[in-house]
C-alpha cells in the first residue's frame, strides 16, 4: 500500500552483511566456498580486452580502401610491436616509399576494405576483484565471482565519494559536535580511516591527501568545499569512482551538523579495529549508500557466534517512539523521538496539505513535521 515512509540509514552494532563480489565480464573465480578471506584477497580475476586503435592505412598510403590488403605487412591476428611497420607501398623509386607503423604493441584485430582502416588492439589488461571486507566466501558465481559474508558493525552514511578501501579506524575528535581541523590530522594517520565530528573543511581535505589518509568520516561538509575538492559541481549523487586521494563519507548532510550520537559512539567503540569503507553512493532507484563495515574478528567479544548476529530486517513504517532524524530545514539535522502520528492531513506553512508527525527532541521541545521530512534511524 502507499505508505509515507522514508527508509533510514542503518547504524548497528551487529549485523550480517553479504557482499556479492562480481566481475563486470566473465573471468576466473579464485576463491572457494568456505574460504576465509581478507579485504585485500583477490577473489576473482578477468582480462579486460585491450584498447583499440584505428589506423587508416588507405589514407596514409594514398590507395583505395579495396586495395589496402595488397599493401599489408601484418595480417589479421598477427602480433605487432610499437613502431613496427604494418603496411607499406612499393614504389619504383625507393625515396617515395611510405611506411605505416603501429602506434601500439598488440595485435591486428581487423582490416576493412570498405573504410581502408586497420584496427589494432592492445594486450588485455588484468582486472582483479578483491574481497573488500574480511569474512567468509558463502556463495560462488561461476566465472563471475563470489559472495562474501561477514558479521560486522555497520554505519551507513548519506553521501560519499571515492571507492572501496580499508584500514584502522581512528577517532580524531572526542565529541560529535566538534569540527575536524587540519591540524588534528597526524602523519600517523596514513592509510587509516579517520572519523571526525560535525564538520571538516577544504583545508582538512587537503591535509588528508598530503598525509595519505585512507578515508574520512564526518557529519557534514560544505558544498563549496566539495566543489573545490572535485574540481567541478557534482550534478547527481552517483559516486564512487572519484580519485581525490581518499574516500569521504558524510553521515548527516551538507552543512555543519553534529554526527548522530549513536553513530559517533559506535565508531569510537571500535577505534583501533580494521574497517572497510566505501564512498560509493547512488541516490536513484537501486539505491547504494556509502558504508563503514567493521568486521567482528577473532579478538572481538562474541566473535564466532554468527548465530547471535542480527541480520538486517525489513521495516514496514514509522511507529511511536522511533528515533528519527529531521532531514529538511528549518530543523535539519535534529534527532528526536516520534511522539504522535496523527492520521489526518495537516496544512503546513507552504499551504500544502500533507501527512505529518510530532517529534519530541532531547530538550523537551516538540515540532510538527511532514512525514516526508524525517528519516528513521535504523539498526
Amino acid at each position: 500500500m502507499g505508505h509515507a515512509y522514508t527508509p533510514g540509514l542503518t547504524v548497528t552494532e551487529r549485523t550480517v552483511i553479504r557482499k556479492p563480489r562480481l566481475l563486470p565480464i566473465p573471468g576466473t573465480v579464485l576463491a572457494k566456498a568456505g574460504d576465509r578471506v581478507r579485504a585485500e584477497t583477490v577473489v576473482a580475476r578477468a582480462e579486460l580486452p585491450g584498447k583499440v586503435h584505428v589506423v587508416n592505412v588507405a589514407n596514409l598510403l594514398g590507395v583505395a580502401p579495396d586495395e589496402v590488403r595488397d599493401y599489408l605487412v601484418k595480417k589479421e591476428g598477427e602480433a605487432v610491436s610499437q613502431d613496427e611497420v604494418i603496411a607499406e607501398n612499393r614504389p619504383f623509386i625507393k625515396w617515395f616509399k611510405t611506411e605505416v607503423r603501429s602506434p601500439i604493441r598488440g595485435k591486428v584485430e581487423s582490416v576493412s576494405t570498405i573504410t581502408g582502416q586497420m584496427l589494432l588492439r592492445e594486450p588485455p589488461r588484468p582486472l582483479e576483484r578483491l574481497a573488500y571486507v574480511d569474512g567468509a566466501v558463502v556463495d560462488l558465481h561461476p566465472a563471475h565471482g563470489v559472495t562474501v559474508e561477514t558479521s560486522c558493525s555497520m554505519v551507513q552514511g548519506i553521501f560519499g565519494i571515492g571507492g572501496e578501501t580499508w584500514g584502522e579506524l581512528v577517532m580524531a575528535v572526542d565529541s560529535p559536535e566538534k569540527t575536524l581541523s587540519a591540524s588534528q590530522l597526524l602523519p600517523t594517520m596514513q592509510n587509516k580511516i579517520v572519523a571526525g565530528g560535525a564538520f571538516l573543511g577544504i583545508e582538512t581535505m587537503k591535509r588528508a591527501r598530503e598525509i595519505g589518509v585512507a578515508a574520512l568520516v564526518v557529519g557534514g561538509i560544505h558544498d563549496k568545499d566539495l566543489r573545490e575538492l572535485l574540481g567541478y559541481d557534482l550534478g547527481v549523487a552517483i559516486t564512487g569512482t572519484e580519485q581525490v586521494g581518499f574516500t569521504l563519507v558524510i553521515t548527516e548532510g551538507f552543512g555543519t551538523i553534529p554526527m548522530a550520537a549513536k553513530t559517533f559512539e559506535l565508531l569510537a567503540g571500535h577505534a583501533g579495529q580494521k574497517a572497510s569503507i566505501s564512498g560509493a553512493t547512488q541516490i536513484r532507484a537501486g539505491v547504494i549508500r556509502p558504508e563503514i563495515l567493521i568486521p567482528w574478528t577473532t579478538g572481538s567479544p562474541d566473535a564466532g557466534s554468527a548465530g547471535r548476529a542480527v541480520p538486517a530486517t525489513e521495516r514496514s513504517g514509522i511507529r511511536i517512539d522511533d528515533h528519527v532524524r529531521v532531514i529538511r530545514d528549518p530543523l535539519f539535522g535534529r534527532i528526536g523521538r516520534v511522539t504522535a502520528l496523527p492520521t489526518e492531513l495537516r496544512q503546513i506553512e507552504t499551504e500544502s496539505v500533507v501527512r505529518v508527525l510530532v517529534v519530541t527532541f532531547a530538550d523537551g521541545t516538540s515540532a510538527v513535521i511532514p512525514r516526508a521530512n524525517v528519516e528513521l534511524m535504523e539498526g
Partner: protein
Amino acid sequence: MTGSAQPSRQMTAAQPLRVIIATDCGSTTTKAILIEKLGNEYRQTFRGEAPTTVEAPFEDVTRGVLNSLAELEELSGRKILDGERIITPNRAAQGEPRVGVDIYISTSSAGGGLQMMVAGAVQSMTGESAQRCALGAGAIVMDVLASNDGRLPHEKIERIRSLRPDMILLSGGTDGGTVTHVVEMAEYISAAEPRPRLGISYQLPLIYAGNKDARDRITEILGGKTSLVITDNIRPVLERENLGPARTKIHDLFLEHVMAQAPGYKKLLEWTGAPIMPTPAAVGLIMETIAKKENLNLIGVDIGGATTDVFSVFGGVFNRTVSANLGLSYSVSNVLAEAGLASILRWVPFTIEEQTLRNRIKNKMIRPTTIPQTLDELQIEQAIAREALRLALAHHASLATGLKGVQQERTISDIFEQKTSGESLIDMLQLDLIVGSGGILSHAPRRVQAMLMMVDAYEPLGVTRLSVDSIFMMPHLGVLSTVDEQAATDVFVRDCMIYLGTCVAPIGRGKDGERCADYTITFGEGRSPECGTLAFGDLRLFPLGRDDRAQIELRPAKQVDLGEGKGVSVTRDVRGGEVGLLLDGRGRPLQLPTDSQKRLAALIRWHRAVGLYPK
C-alpha cells in the same frame, strides 16, 4: 503468484470496454488508475499507488502492481483481484457490477527506462535523425556517435564500450549513397564489443536503419556480435526523414529484449491487454493525439525528480526530448551546475547566502523525497524549477528542428515538414497551449504558482493557454489511446487536464511604468468590461473561470508587437481556468532588474499582484 495469463487482448476486440485499469510503473512509484464508463463518457474514478518493486529485495515488478491495484480495490470498492489474478472481463452481465475489469494496460519507466546509444554518419544529419527517432520512441539517449563528432576513433570505441545501453540504433548514409562512413561506425561498434545493461547472457539488440546498400556489410560485421535487426533507412534521401519503421522496431525490441530482462516483466507482459509502452512514448502519444484532434500547437513538459521530458507538436510535427539530468530532486544539483547560481537566485524573492543555498540544494539531492516545509524553501524550489524548465525547453528547441543542410520538401505521414533548413520548429508566437506535468507543477499549493513558473520559464508570446496534468495520468492515457482513443480523449479532457487560464504577453521592451498596451476585456453576460492600461513592469490577473470565455482587445504602444506587427491592435477570444487571465507587461524577452534591491522589489510586486504566496 499463480502465473495466470490473461486473455484480455483477444477480448478487447470482441466487446466494448467499460472498466479499465492502467498502471504506470515508474522508477519509484507504481501508479494505478481506474477508468469507468459512466453514461456515455469515460471518467477516471479512483487511483492507487505503491512503491515500485523492480529492485531488491523484491525484484518483481508485479508485486508493486498488485499492491497498487489492492489500494485501488480498497478505495473503489470494486473487486479487481482474485488472489494474484486480475479478474477479466467485468462481471456486470453476471449480476456482479462491482467485480472485474475489461482490460489491464501499463506503461513502464522502472529501472531507468529505455536507455539507448545512437550512431549516425554525420552528426547534424543522420546523427540527429537517429537521436530524434530514439527520443520519439521514449528512450533516454546516452550518447550520439558520428564520424565527425570530434572524437578520435579510439575515444569512440572506449565510449561505446563503457556505456551499457539497452540497445543501439545505427544509421548513416542515404540509400544508394556512400557506405564508407556507416561501415566505419559499425567497425567501431564491433571492436568495442558492447554489452547490454540488463542480463549478461544475451546479445545487445542493435537496429540498423541506414543506407540499404550497406546491409550485407553491416550483417557481416555486427551479425555475430549483436542481436541485429535491419529496418528501413531513417534518412532514405537527404530531404526526408522516415522514423516510423525504426521507432516500431525500438518498441518491439523494448518488449522482446529489454522488458523480458527486467525482473517480473515476463509475467506483467502476460497480464496486459496491449503492449507495454515506455512511459515517455505513451505521454508523447497522447499529446500528439490531442494536438492533432484539436488542431493545436502545443508544448508539454513533464518535470520529474531526475529528468525533464519536453514534448512539442508544431504544425502537426511531433518531437520529444529528454533532459536526462534536469530534475528537482535526484538531479536538483545538476540544475544548479547547468544554470549557475545567479540564474536561480534571480527568481528568489529574498536574500540568501550562497553557501546556505548550495548546501540546501545538495541536501535536497541526497534526500530527494523531502518536501518544502517553509515558505522560503518552497520559493527556492520553485526558483530552481523555473531554471530546469527553461533549460529543458532550450535543449528541446535545439533538437526539434527541420532537417539540416537540405532543400525543403513537404510530405505526408511520419516525416518532418520543414520551414527553413535546420530552423527550430518551436515558435512561441504560434503556440496555443502549454501542458505542465510533474509534482512541482501539478501539486503546487496554489495553481497560480504553476502558471507563473511556466510563464517565467517559457516566456510565451502573444496569447497562450496554460494547463497542468491533475495527477499525472498522461502515460496511462497514452497507452489507452492505442486501445480505445475515445476513452483516452474523454478522460484527458474531463479529468486529466486542469486549465489554468490564458497568458497575454506583448513582445517588446520599455521602461517600468511606460505604456505597453491599452486593453478592453469583454466578459459574458452580467459582468462589466475591464478597461485600462498595461504598463511595462505590470503583471495583472483577472479571474476567469474554467468554463468562461472573454474577448480581449489590445492596443499596443508603437514598439510593441502582439503577433500582428508593431503597434497593430489585436482582438482575441480567450478562455479561463482555475487561475484566470494573466496580462504580462514585463516585456519580452523578460529581463529582471540587475540591481539586487530593485529585483527583489519587482519580484515582490509581481508576486503580490497575482497572489502568488500567502502574505
